[in-house]
């Protein structure tokens, strides 16, 4: 295949990336640094500067980080044993339990969250309305399967012989877990964390519905866009915040990726 036909074949992909990724990202940047007024367009760093220096915005960002970290940890604590349990089931049961786990995912995200809301408000089983606990429950409920599936996949890929080899060399359950199962599921853990942490960090629907008293970065951006968008322009401060959040997400992802690679080169078992 020549280089030309290769490029031709990939054109739909390039168009897709251009239209749905690159242009929207550029537009965010454009709205963040250009002011659109009836009088014309002019360059300004004011919104970006404002977004970086405003202490309240930083508070919202920090709060979102906290909630995302806690939710991800809860997901991990619940999801890892669940993935292990799944991988140990005989095939038929495994498929059935996987189906049960995925079934709620086929329902609309909003409906699920509304349903959860009615369970934990004044008339629900427990009243957690307006607390961070409610937000964490909402995030865990919505995002748990995204963490379980990659871990489960990496567990299924572990060769049973490796576990037997570890036992054969004198390893008890703890040694086998620490020496074989945990390191070999680490890539699954990392991609699971990425799949949960990023949506937790940026979501606005869940905190909106479950705790509207305090701000998260997602809620803040949504609010800016809803309230400050005019006929001429979207909220330039909202765009600036989005841009900063995007950079934060990129930093997080590169840290996760680095963790994954570090593990590959180091390895080993310290008991």
């Amino acid at each position: 295949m020549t280089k030309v036909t290769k490029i031709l074949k990939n054109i739909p992909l390039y168009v897709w990336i251009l239209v749905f990724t690159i242009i929207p990202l550029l537009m965010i940047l454009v709205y963040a640094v250009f002011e659109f007024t009836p009088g014309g367009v002019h360059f300004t760093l004011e919104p970006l500067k404002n977004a970086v220096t405003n202490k309240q915005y930083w508070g919202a960002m920090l709060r979102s980080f906290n909630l995302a970290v806690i939710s991800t940890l809860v997901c991990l604590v619940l999801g890892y044993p669940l993935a292990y349990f799944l991988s140990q089931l005989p095939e038929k049961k495994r498929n059935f339990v996987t189906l049960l786990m995925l079934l709620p995912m086929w329902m609309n995200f909003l409906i699920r969250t509304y349903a959860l809301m009615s369970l934990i408000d004044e008339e629900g089983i427990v009243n957690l309305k307006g607390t961070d606990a409610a937000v964490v429950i909402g995030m865990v409920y919505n995002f748990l399967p995204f963490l379980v599936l990659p871990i489960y996949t990496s567990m299924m890929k572990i060769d049973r012989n490796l576990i037997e080899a570890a036992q054969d060399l004198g390893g008890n359950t703890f040694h086998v877990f620490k020496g074989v199962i945990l390191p070999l599921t680490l890539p699954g853990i990392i991609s699971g964390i990425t799949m949960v942490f990023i949506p937790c960090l940026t979501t606005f629907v869940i905190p909106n519905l479950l705790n509207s008293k305090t701000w998260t970065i997602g809620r803040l951006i949504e609010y800016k866009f809803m309230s400050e968008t005019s006929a001429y322009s979207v909220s330039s401060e909202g765009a600036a915040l989005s841009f900063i959040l995007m950079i934060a997400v990129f930093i997080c992802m590169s840290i996760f990726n680095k963790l994954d690679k570090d593990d590959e080169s180091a390895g080993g078992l310290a008991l």
Partner: protein
Amino acid sequence: MSEHIIDLLNITKSYGDTEVIKDLSLYIRKNEFLTLLGPSGCGKTTTLRIISGFEKPDSGRVLFNGEDINDLPPHKRKVNTVFQKYSLFPNMNIYENIAFGLRIKKLPEAEIKKKVKAALELVELSGFERRKPDSLSGGQQQRIAIARAIVNEPEVLLLDEPLGALDLKLRKEMQVELKALQRKTGITFVYVTHDQEEALTMSDTIVVMNQGVIQQIGKPTDIYNEPVNAFVARFIGDSNILSGVMLKDYLCEFAGHRFECADKGFEKDEDVDVVVRPEDIKVVAPADGMITGTVVSALFKGVHYEMIVVSPDGFHWKIHSTQITEPGSEIGMVIKPFDIQIMKIPYNILTGWIIKGEDIDLVDIGKVNVKYLPQNVNADINGFEDEETVNVYILPQDIEVLPAAPVKEPEDGDNITSGEVETFRYKGDDYEITVKCGDVVLLVHTYSKVNIGQTVYLHIPEDKIRIRKREEVVEIDDQGN
């Protein structure tokens, strides 16, 4: 007994309805190289896994240095395994792989380092410490797997077809190295393989297994030269297996000729299987041969020619010779007495008791109730007392499998019995099946194809049933021990 390191006592193991190991007893001596040899599905790997503790026998006991280790989990047993697919930990480098077992024992790091280095030297892969398993070739990975096991100084090393994934040349090299390693370390090796050549090359003792039963235990030369039954003869090396009759001690008849042989202790005119190795047949001029034959084909095999020769009785002989005889020409064959191996045929041995008919005319031909066939059978009971308990011998090939169910239910004296097919095996030209009839299991050789679980009707001809008095009974034991 003190020199036994492992004793397996009456082990049985089933998966679902399939019995993989049937009442297996075996001992392994200290410092020996013992090979479990057999076709796939013969139970050899399961036997190994019972020793390593990954499988629990349904019944029977495993002794290690005389101590019962049935309930000991794998990680507490003083054995280590070299797995078929190497099973190196992909997340660790070579050093960490070999150190794994030592780390668990909490050895000081300096000692671990020394031992890992020594183990790598032993398998001639010094300097590979920092490499990752997937950067190594198959042969190198296998050596690391061996190093990882022996670094723990196990008393017994279990090897599950460790060379199965290597190419022929590398396999041959590794065979020599493994044997040398075993001598050097003095560790008891229990080796599983389906490759008879591998087993013959390396082992001190070979255990030939088939369908969960030990067929023969012996030194490689004994197994090769004196196979106890047709299965072992077929499985170990090329062989010609013929049906013959033992006329008297040191004289047998097969392929239409009487041969002197080296075996004795058979009954007069006992049906036997005769094994002649292809390299033991000397090709001579037709006039000088004990028997003659026509060459059908000749293939050059490197060191020798492999010829197929048909003798007048129709048997296809396989002959290895360094000189070629053109296909179509007639040759003579000479076989020396010591090159003829006579094997007992596994009889069905049943318990029966005599029921003599009331009619005086029927005194000679009466019924013998064979324990516990559903129906009594008629047989020649001349010379036996009424109600006497006797042994009944029936050859597997004498039992006919009826093509269809008889018109009326079989009854006493029809010599027809029915049962369910339990096992089924293709033997080359006919099938060997076992049929559960009432309380006994009959071994049957047949040309008809049947299915496991199918109900078959068997006819046992009156004149083929041999009855022997209890006290005269010579123990016929196809296990050879």
